[in-house]
């Protein structure tokens, strides 16, 4: 049955209406969780606020387990969903650049949109930076076109590359996440106690 739009259960004309509605829910959850503040987001790297880790890992586990369940009961054909292609070295390099950008900028693209929505000037400047970065990339693209397309492994999943069934990965992520939830609780308490002031 699912995915609904690719299988024609919902007509293509509804595409953009659904896009806006799903976006509204996305923005609402991000803002309500505190992701509209760069201080909250940066806290994950300094131990005074692990809200990013909590929301991110919980969402990951729910989505992973949910997908497996949907596949198991036959609501969703997992072979029909989009799998992000893997370009090994460009993705590692991209992730490293994004990691530095995250710590310096205090936002990521989606969270900066919610920051703009409630009037955070630093979120607006971050988004201007995003624009400049992508524009710069486009202009300089001929310089690293070969690198950009290197290490192409195709639309490969963890299961295909390791031969281990998906439920094992879901369990492993869950165990790691629960351990992280537990451990970071103590780190957060300790760091906050030692901070003179904690500003949101």
């Amino acid at each position: 049955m699912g995915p609904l739009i690719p299988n024609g259960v919902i007509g293509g004309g509804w595409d953009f209406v659904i896009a806006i509605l799903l976006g509204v829910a996305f923005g609402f959850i991000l803002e309500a969780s505190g992701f509209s503040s760069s201080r909250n987001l940066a806290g994950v790297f300094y131990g005074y606020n692990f809200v990013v880790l909590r929301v991110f890992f919980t969402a990951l586990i729910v989505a992973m387990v949910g997908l497996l369940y949907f596949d198991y009961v036959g609501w969703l054909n997992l072979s029909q969903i989009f799998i992000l292609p893997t370009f090994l070295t460009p993705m590692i390099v991209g992730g490293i650049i994004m990691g530095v950008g995250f710590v310096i900028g205090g936002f990521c693209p989606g969270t900066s949109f919610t920051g703009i929505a409630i009037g955070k000037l630093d979120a607006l400047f971050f988004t201007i930076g995003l624009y400049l970065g992508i524009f710069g990339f486009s202009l300089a693209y001929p310089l690293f076109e070969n690198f950009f397309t290197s290490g192409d492994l195709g639309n490969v999943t963890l299961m295909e590359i390791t031969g281990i069934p998906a439920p094992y990965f879901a369990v492993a992520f869950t165990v790691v996440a629960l351990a992280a939830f537990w451990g970071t609780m103590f780190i957060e308490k300790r760091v906050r106690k030692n901070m003179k002031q904690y500003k949101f």
Partner: protein
Amino acid sequence: MISDKTNIEKPKYINPYLGGVLLGLLILATIYITGRGLGASGAIKSAVVTTSNTVAPKATEANHYMGQFLSDDHSPMYTWLVFESLGVLIGGLLSGIIFGRVKKWRTDHGPRITIKKRLILAVIGGALFGLGSQFGRGCTSGAALSGTATFALGGVIVMFAIFGTGYAVAYFFRKFWI
């Protein structure tokens, strides 16, 4: 500096685990309906291609990267991610209104830096994030979260690279935040 006001009592954010469950269910619903996850950086890319195409259409078409996102039938803004991101702005505003966080322009920054420095750093960080998101085939939402949720190897790589690097370099940028 309004933003220097210390906020000891807890702000009105929802429980992060509740937020996580809701976000997970939303990703699940998005994949169930559309066959793919949520994203954000793609919308900015559309904006870049659109302005470039308006100012210099020939050069944009000749550009090997931007050229592939042009189409004869519609504007590059007419894409799923642009509409989704429009929704993100509306949803963020809705939440801000409900929880009383919508105010005129203000800036969050660490106690040791000025607003001006924070804004410059926001542009630099954003530019790096924008650049990296192209190499990573997506950002925290599209590649790291949605990618990993669908068990894509690339998603896991991007997730570990972003957060691993964040922790590795955080020490050097501590004066910006604590």
